[in-house]
């Protein structure tokens, strides 16, 4: 496992060399009359694994959908690799999502957002939608299969016939196929047996990030503890506190 370094203080990781992969500032988003995200700020640096914990209905998924441009409306700034991808818009969810994906976002959504009639292989192909990822899709598939060994035997099976755990592997594998610099993983263990959920999390930790970064939203704090670089708490549409894996110090973000 390559998360040994997380026990060291942040200073040893040479923060100057780190690039900002994601910079969200003043993001508000919601659906129709409902405002789910309230003036949220979030910075994620390259090489980081960040956990976001919080209860149901406090906006974890909406934050991810907002970054992907899939909420009903949104305003505020979202910078991905320095490129502005946040737009103030009042309608048109998903209209710019393909451009955001091309800019380097891989969203692994909650639950089974799968194409039930496609085979596992086609499914993985469908994740490789940037030009480069499509050209390299054979190698990328091998890399995903290395992480999710059980999928090897299922390559020609329609995804609709897989079990819940296998589906989740396919869904995560699809996200990992992308040529992304930011992976957003929404509740990877939801609805899975504890043992399988844990192995899915382990697999996510086994992904080599390199220059990219990963944000994992999860309800089960125990699953993330000691495995990610920072844990942020989400409450009522705002990030309320931060615990770095090294210090477990709580900073209050209130009022931000």
């Amino acid at each position: 496992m390559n998360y040994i370094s997380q026990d060291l203080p942040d200073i040893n990781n040479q923060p100057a060399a780190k690039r900002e992969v994601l910079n969200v500032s003043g993001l508000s988003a919601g659906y129709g009359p409902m405002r789910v995200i309230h003036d949220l700020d979030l910075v994620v640096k390259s090489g980081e694994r960040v956990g976001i914990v919080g209860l149901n209905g406090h906006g974890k998924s909406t934050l991810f959908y907002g970054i992907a441009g899939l909420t009903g409306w949104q305003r505020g700034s979202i910078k991905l690799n320095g490129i502005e991808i946040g737009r103030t818009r009042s309608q048109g969810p998903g209209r710019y999502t393909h451009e955001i994906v091309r800019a380097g976002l891989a969203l692994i959504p909650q639950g089974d957002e799968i194409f039930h009639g496609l085979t596992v292989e086609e499914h993985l192909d469908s994740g490789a939608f940037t030009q480069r990822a499509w050209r390299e899709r054979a190698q990328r598939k091998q890399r995903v299969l290395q992480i999710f060994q059980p999928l090897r035997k299922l390559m020609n099976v329609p995804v609709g016939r897989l079990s819940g755990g296998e589906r989740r592997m396919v869904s995560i594998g699809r996200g990992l196929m992308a040529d992304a610099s930011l992976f957003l993983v929404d509740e990877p263990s939801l609805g899975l047996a504890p043992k399988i959920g844990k192995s899915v999390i382990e697999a996510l930790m086994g992904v080599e990030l390199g220059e990219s970064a990963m944000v994992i939203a999860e309800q089960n704090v125990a699953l993330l503890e000691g495995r990610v670089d920072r844990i942020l708490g989400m409450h009522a549409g705002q990030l309320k506190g931060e615990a770095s894996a090294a210090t477990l110090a709580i900073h209050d973000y209130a009022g931000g």
Partner: protein
Amino acid sequence: MDIWFVISNAIVLACIYGTLAIGVSITWSSLGLLNLAYGFIFAFAGYGAWLVSQHVSDWGPVLLAAGILIGALGGVLVCAIAFIPIHDKPNYTIRGLIATLAINLLGTQGLLWWFGPRSKTLPEIFGGWKISLSGMVLTADKVGNVLTSILMLIVVLRWMQSSRRGLEIRAMMMNPHAASIVGIGVRRTSFYVMAITGGLAGLAAVLLSQTYYISPFGGLTPMIKGVSIALCGGLGSVRGAVIAAIVLGLNESITTFAIGGQYVLITQFLFIIAILLVRPRGIAGILDKAREA
């Protein structure tokens, strides 16, 4: 009138209606748009092919290509007017229905105004030869219709199976939301879909013009049949549409043979109602092996 005549007619009709039904089915399941402008695209492509036959060339392959291309153009036009501006607005399904219906009415009236009420005929595309096979007489237009539509469908389906754009379209047919998550642009894909389905309508228009005339309202009945076959096959399933086309083509030619052509729509809809009572998701409900999320 013998059994072979009924069967050969059934196959010809099944091929042409199947082409239309697959177009309707793909549009519905990938764009969520029940394209009621299909009849207009059909007539538009028919008149386009007629113009080509008058001014450019009346060689068969040219007319087929012209029909397909002009149909594709019509599809793109409908997409630009009726899909792009409204596809992410609230209540899109109903708006799309109304928009395409409006295009259909306006378009057919426009054709009526431009070309006049007299229907046109296309020259014989496949020539006038005949083969006699042990009592069964195969005319050129029947053989040509069947071969051309099957060839076109195979090309389209192979393309959808093997190419990247095809993968995009199939992904969008199964789960549009997940499709946008993986980075499939809905707007661009919609142009591909509408061009392909428009091309299928154009092909059907040219093929059907070998039996019927081209008239401004000539697309209405084929469209109704295409939509009902797509419904019967299970909207979104290509295989279901093919099976439904065969069954309903058989029904049409048997009805014409046994009790008369004016009862075709009656028996057809009775048949569809019976199927949908037993299988609410159409014939595809039996075929579908994968369960939905």
